[in-house]
């Protein structure tokens, strides 16, 4: 599949974090478009009315709804796995519960590193891997990454 660019949707309620992540995305070389939602409600609205789903949705684990069991299952039910990648980033280390998140349709779990340059590297890698899945038509069922 040849797509001109990858569309990314960032969901982050903290304005400082948002600004910081936006600055990282500005340095990503893979051609992309970045949209932002400030809450899970805004995300739901966006998904309800959008004509084209984003290729990658990256959510902050700090959003209140995210911690609820079954959130990703519901979110995944509304977006087809073969067209959209779901990723979450958190300050917390992945626990045993992460198996359930991946089983619910999550593709990427990022434990935010303390070193900002490392997060920069991770974000770039996530976009690059996603780009490869899109352009090479790889099986997204096996698209599971943990950082």
């Amino acid at each position: 599949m040849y797509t001109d660019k990858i569309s990314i949707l960032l969901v982050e309620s903290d304005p400082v974090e948002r600004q910081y992540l936006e600055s990282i995305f500005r340095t990503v070389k893979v051609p992309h478009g970045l949209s932002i939602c400030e809450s899970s409600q805004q995300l739901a609205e966006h998904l309800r009315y959008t004509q084209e789903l984003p290729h990658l949705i990256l959510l902050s684990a700090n959003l209140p709804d995210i911690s609820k069991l079954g959130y990703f299952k519901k979110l995944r039910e509304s977006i087809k796995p073969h067209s959209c990648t779901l990723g979450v980033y958190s300050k917390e280390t992945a626990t045993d519960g992460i198996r359930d998140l991946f089983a619910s349709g999550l593709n990427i779990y990022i434990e935010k590193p303390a070193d900002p340059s490392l997060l920069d590297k991770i974000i770039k890698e996530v976009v690059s891997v996603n780009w490869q899945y899109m352009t090479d038509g790889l099986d997204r069922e096996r698209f599971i990454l943990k950082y």
Partner: protein
Amino acid sequence: MKVYVKCNIEDTCRAILGEQLDRFGIRYTLIGSGCVQFEEVISMHTYQEFITALQRYNIHILDNNKTLLVEKIKAVVIALYRLNKLPLIKMSSYLEEKLGTSYRTLAKSFVEVCHMSIEEYIIRYKIERAKEMLVNEFLTLTEIAHTLHYSSVAHLSNQFKKVTGFCPKEFQGLMQYKRINTA
């Protein structure tokens, strides 16, 4: 009921190409992977309709030289690992010889189009194959390491962990858990 399918993308692509070319009554020869030679002149209208028909399957005509070169690089790499016939010479020399272009040009084009180096692509391709073999073909790590030309199981496991964040067995368990929970 849910079933899992395994498919060879190249064979599928060739089958669809053949079906569509027949549908439009175009005489053709399929050359290698991903190349069609038209045996007659076809109208622009038919050509446009043919392109549109292929787009439904996410198959696109490559009309950009760099993109074409990159697809050729990928096809050479994929064929080597699928047929399990790695060259005795260095991969860079093999690609140069096979594609008749300097490795410098190949590497530059690859980064421009794919935003990763050929070496990174090969590593990621091998790990994707390893995932496929673990999850769909149920091969052992020793068999996978041998098929993908890793020097040892430890080398495979280390690279797998570096790329995916999981040990191979952990990944296999996770995929089984995922399948059971989504059945």
